């Protein structure tokens, strides 16, 4: 009976996520506000349904004594995410519902997978999420009102850099990279937060001036960030920072030559890195021919490929695979675990949802008039999109594995908190964009009023 539930649930999961994904793209085309709101509500409902179904499937595979605990935990998950939707809407009626829904959906999938992989880690993730979601409610108002934010460019730069340097000195080394500062039982990954401060720094500096000397100073500071990350062996992080900076820089200066130059420098650095650092060569070897080094360097990626391949299109069913065979599956390879148990179709829908987030971020960047926020939204969008690309691409051996997390889905308090912050900042900017639109609407109305008045006066005179 249990296996029947698991087998059938595979199809229902796919149906739910397919509907959710379809709505993400179809609702945007609708004109009628009522229909649009209906679409958002259906998405919320689907999120809850997936959580309920996952709960049922896991309950069916749990011993009697563990069931109550599990049921309660799922109840908490559903309440937390729906509360986040509810309160965000009450506090900020104008937020982007799509971005909000996506945030909750991705977290829901993350919770399900983590609950299945490790109950204790899932609980920890849940606690951090609850705190982070609550605090993030403050962020949109800061963005909306905080004109001071763009005046603190060097503060962002220096504070971020200090954090990174601190890690490279005091950080704990895990699987070759120094990523986290450990204080007692609490481990903190500054680079996740420095991502945001780095984007703020680059945006604030490039808004101020694109004069050559200033550009040079900004670029040197950005370069030091990247170098410190390389020294700490956080190659994925270095690549993310580099790409985000390159894009903001290009958009700010509008000089393709700079972009190509930067790209060239990046390729040169990658080439030099390959020859200088053995761990880079190891990563590349594990990518080009993982089966020749299956016992050591290629172990992780081949296990990931086994997971993805064995799951195939429909998946093994929740709790039916062996994602635990993949080292650090909860962080860097959560996508493989999802793909193994929920199947390739589900995984592709997940990529499309991430892509939808990315498109929303970039759309906001395009539409917002405040240039500082434009660059910030763009930078965050690129960071997000590129990070999804790196982690998914790494898991399926499309590109070498760089060891970055899937935002909002992977385990890790710092990554989760930073991602929630990032989404909140985007929401703030979305509101600002709406404000701008209303503002310009008013201005236009005012102007036309003046014009009409003038006409009237002219009419009167004649």
């Amino acid at each position, binding site marked *: 009976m249990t296996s029947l539930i698991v087998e059938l649930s595979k199809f229902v999961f796919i149906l739910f996520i397919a509907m959710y994904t379809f709505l993400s793209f179809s609702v945007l085309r609708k004109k009628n506000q009522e229909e649009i709101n209906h679409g958002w509500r259906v998405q919320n409902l689907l999120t809850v349904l997936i959580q309920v179904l996952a709960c049922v499937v896991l309950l069916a595979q749990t011993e009697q004594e563990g069931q109550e605990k599990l049921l309660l935990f799922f109840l908490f998950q559903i309440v937390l995410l729906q509360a986040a939707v509810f309160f965000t809407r009450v506090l900020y009626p104008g937020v982007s519902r799509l971005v909000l829904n996506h945030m909750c959906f991705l977290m829901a999938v993350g919770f399900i997978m983590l609950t299945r992989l490790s109950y204790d880690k899932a609980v920890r993730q849940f606690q951090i999420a609850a705190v982070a979601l609550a605090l993030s409610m403050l962020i949109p108002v800061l963005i909306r009102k905080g004109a001071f934010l763009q005046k603190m460019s060097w503060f962002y730069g220096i504070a971020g850099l200090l954090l990174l340097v601190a890690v490279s000195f005091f950080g704990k080394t895990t699987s070759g990279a120094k990523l986290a500062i450990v204080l007692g039982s609490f481990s903190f990954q500054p680079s996740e937060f420095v991502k945001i401060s780095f984007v703020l720094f680059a945006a604030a500096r490039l808004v101020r001036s694109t004069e050559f000397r200033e550009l040079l100073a900004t670029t040197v500071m950005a370069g030091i960030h990247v170098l410190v990350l390389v020294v700490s062996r956080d190659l994925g992080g270095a690549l993310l920072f580099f790409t985000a900076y390159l894009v903001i820089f290009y958009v700010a200066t509008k000089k393709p030559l700079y972009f190509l130059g930067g790209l060239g420098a990046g390729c040169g650095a990658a080439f030099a890195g390959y020859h200088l650092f053995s761990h880079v060569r190891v990563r590349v070897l594990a990518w080009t021919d993982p089966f020749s080094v299956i016992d050591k360097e290629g172990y992780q990626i081949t*296990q990931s490929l*086994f997971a993805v*391949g064995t799951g195939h*299109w429909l998946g093994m069913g929740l709790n039916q695979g062996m994602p635990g065979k993949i080292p650090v599956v909860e962080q860097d390879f959560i996508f493989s675990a999802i793909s193994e148990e929920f199947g390739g179709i589900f995984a*592709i829908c997940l990529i499309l949802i991430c892509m939808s987030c990315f498109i929303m971020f970039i759309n906001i960047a395009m539409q917002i008039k405040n240039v500082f926020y434009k660059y910030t939204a763009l930078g965050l969008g690129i960071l997000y999109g590129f990070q999804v690309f790196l982690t998914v691409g790494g898991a*399926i051996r499309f590109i070498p594995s760089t060891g970055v997390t899937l935002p909002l889905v992977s385990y890790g308090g710092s990554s989760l908190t930073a991602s929630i912050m990032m989404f909140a900042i985007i929401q703030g900017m979305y509101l600002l964009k709406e404000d701008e639109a209303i503002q310009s609407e008013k201005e236009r109305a005012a102007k036309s009023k003046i014009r009409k008045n003038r006409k009237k006066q002219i009419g009167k005179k004649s």
Partner: protein
Amino acid sequence: MITYLFIGLFTCMIGYFIYFEAVLSPDVINNPYNARQDAFAEKIIRGKILASDGTVLAETKTAEDGTETRSYPFGNVFSHVVGYSTRGRTGLETLANFYLLTSDMPVVERIQNEIKEEKNQGDQVITTLDVNLQKTAWDALGSNRGAAVVLEAGTGRVLAMVSKPDFDPEQINANWDSLTSEDDTESALYNRAAQGLYAPGSTFKIITLLEYMRENPSTYADFTFHCNGKLTEGNYTINCYNKKAHGDEDLTKAFAKSCNAAFASIGLGLNTSSLSAACDSLMFNRELPFELTYSKSSFSLDDSAVPADKMMTAVGQGQTLVSPLHMALIASAIANEGKLMKPYLLERVENAESSLVKSFEPEEYGPLMTAAEAQNLTEYMKAVVESGTGSKLSDLGFPVAGKTGTAEYSSDKKKSHAWFVGFSDTEEQEDIVVCVLIEEKGSGSEYAVPVARKIFSAWHNSLTSGS
């Protein structure tokens, strides 16, 4: 613009993901390191392995109390190629593991079994193996150590693959300790057909001849030589088999009689680097396109080679080592107008009710030589059967082309490995390639050719009785 760039990246990635799931994943996941396969066995009854005519080669029987045993009706006959699955996995048992542990029974039935909490029957694989040829080869090798490989030249289907000494796959657990003990000198678990590496002896003259024709395209047919039973260059002397003097000979006779003196003299004149290149292109020092465990053949002869090295290499006695499978592949390319077909063992996958799940098509590896070269070599190899060391094959009723070899593998010149490699040249049927190796026995014509003869005639008989 940058947005589109990113969307493009994502699209490529999704495309690759689809490609991975649709095309790459079966090969990737069928790997002994993939522990997920073992988990399947808890829900699936391991499927059957069948010969090409449907004869059962391996099947799992479930007793009343639910215990499963893997049975191999032919005992030792298919031991290496079918392999075993109860102590690790080898042979077809590992190659087809994923299919055997996947059930493609009708969905309704699968769900019924799920509800009853019963195991589903796994898919069965139909192999290219021919029971009659495998048994013939196995019987013909008798108690000798050695190997035999039979391929279909035009398709690459592996019809038989025998290695001796062998083992009983049903008793693999009971006999494990003695099979793997340090005192064991038999190496019965070793698949000599694909993993055994031997000096090629005179079978290498096929390659020497090919290289000679390539280096002397217009004059090779004019080759003449007077053999007095040996050839001395510097202080090294190479002897013909039994020091027999072959007298005046042309290239056809020198090849047919397997004259060492003549081929050593040819070897002295060859360009070492282009001979090396020719061997590389014939897959020496390379991976072979074969799905079971095999050993890479090796060839080394560089510019610093002294005349003695060149002479020995030309007659297959130097540093060269080759597997019976590899020799069979070279012969199959000659039989197939120079084109090598990838050898394969899996014909199709069916569910337990014999409806098709997946079938495998012959695949071309690529040309190993030109069609003209293959044609010329075939003529020379036919002469071996008509008037040379393979004459015991001349009265089979259909033309055969081949080459014998007697490989001395130690300084004790009395001990040698007997080789035969060749193919039928009927032009009407799918021709077969036969390669036989017998360890430590004697000359190829005396020991390997009779084995090949039994295989060829068994094949011919089954064709004529079948049609």
